[in-house]
């Protein structure tokens, strides 16, 4: 059995991760396992990193990864898909936008869900609240126009203008 990382040496170190009902395996040669710090129990990322890497390296079941073209680089930091396959990590926050499409199958195995349901920064919440308010005003404006309620429509139009 060949090492999952270098794909050259014989795999001697086997990591098995059981998460719920799912089992994931990573097989490494001695050199790669030393390099990745696999025997360090306090480094959380080593095994997760490896699994991320291995999973990133495998083609999504039944799909071909659209961002695998070798030329695709993150415009902000220059990271490539190949860099991700090697390191299991991304180069910057914008990489998620650049390489986003291939991620979902990997995230499905890694996490409980693929959409964030937790805390968001206050600034984001505020801008989201504003965006929702704007949407609501637009709807009311359309309704007012349809109902030929032009006075109200004019007021709504002015309010929208003030918000933008």
């Amino acid at each position, binding site marked *: 059995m060949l090492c999952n990382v270098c794909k050259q040496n014989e795999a001697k170190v086997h990591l098995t991760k*059981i998460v*719920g009902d799912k089992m994931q395996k990573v097989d490494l040669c001695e050199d790669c396992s030393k390099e990745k710090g696999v025997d360090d129990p306090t480094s959380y990322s080593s095994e997760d990193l490896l699994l991320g890497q291995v999973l990133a390296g495998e083609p999504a079941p039944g799909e071909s990864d659209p961002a695998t073209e070798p030329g695709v680089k993150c415009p902000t930091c220059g990271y490539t898909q190949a860099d991700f396959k090697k390191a299991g*990590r*991304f180069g*910057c926050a914008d990489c998620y936008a650049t390489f986003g499409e291939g991620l979902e199958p990997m995230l499905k195995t890694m996490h*409980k869900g693929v*959409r964030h349901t937790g805390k968001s920064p206050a600034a984001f919440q505020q801008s989201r609240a504003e965006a929702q308010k704007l949407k609501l005003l637009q709807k009311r404006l359309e309704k007012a126009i349809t109902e030929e309620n032009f006075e109200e429509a004019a007021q709504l139009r002015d309010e929208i203008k003030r918000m933008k």
Partner: protein
Amino acid sequence: MTIHEFLVPPSVSCQRTGPNDQIVMSSRVRLARNLRKLPFPSWAKKPDRLRVIETIQPAVESLPQLDPHFAAAMDALTPLDKQILVERHLISREHAAKGAGSGLVVNREESLCVMINEEDHLRMQALRPGLQIKACWQAIDALDTALEPKLDFAFSPELGYLTACPTNLGTGIRVSAMLHLPGLVLAEEITRIINAANKLNFAVRGLYGEGTEALGNVFQVSNQMTLGESEPQIIERISKALNQIIEEEENARQALLEKKPKTVFNHIGRAYGILANAHTISSKETMNLLSLLRLGIDLGMFKGLDRAQTDEIFLLTQPAHLQRQHTGKLGAEERDILRADMLRDRLRAVQRPQVPG
């Protein structure tokens, strides 16, 4: 002032107590955050790492929650300094390996600790003795909220907080507790507990030692998934699991005392015998025997020795802590001798364990 002069010595830090600290030694909640646009630490070149730390460090230092605090640049600390911080569980081994552009801000209470340019731009953690997961979450949530207006965190509505490694996406939260489980280990029930925790998507790792070898019967339970659940949900689930593990450990100890008391007293007695009389002893053996001493204390078998003192000895006999107390560079054999000397000295006034009740 050096960081060691700033932090209280182990004799004081090991006195800190918390609920259920017989079994739960400490609780921690860590959040991972990154700035927009700037490359993550592993990919960034030095100038970018410096830009990150120059942006983040002043923002962190300005927070009143961290006062009094100490800020250290990782390249200004010696390898020994860094190893001591690892032994005190303030920084990860990965962070200790970092150099220029990485930093640390910690408060004297050691209840809040921020690593800059570790795997992510910002890894902030709240630590508390005993089982205080919710208090840790409240403290770190407040710190995060206080930092938000000062720093532009990379966040997407679909994927949440964006992190270097996809395994930390979303909440970026790692909730963990350090547990002392000698009962479950002696009763050979620990594998069952680990499997049960794994089914709930929690990782259980030996804190020391290689792979699954758990030295000192100390285990760390932590969440593995960070996306698709909210922080309060993760906190709630892991708190429930921890309470179950505490109950299991208490039951295991109870059962051992009822069914195999002589086995338990034998382990504890022999641990005391070796620790109080050895002339050379490895760090590994020390951790395992001190764990049994700690169990003996919980069972009321020792006079003149309490849990805080045992925890202090556990820390002081770690390699970097030992080295710090001696000027010449110590080899492994010399450390083993000095460790034994320290143990004999500390346990001189402690009487042999008495059968409880």
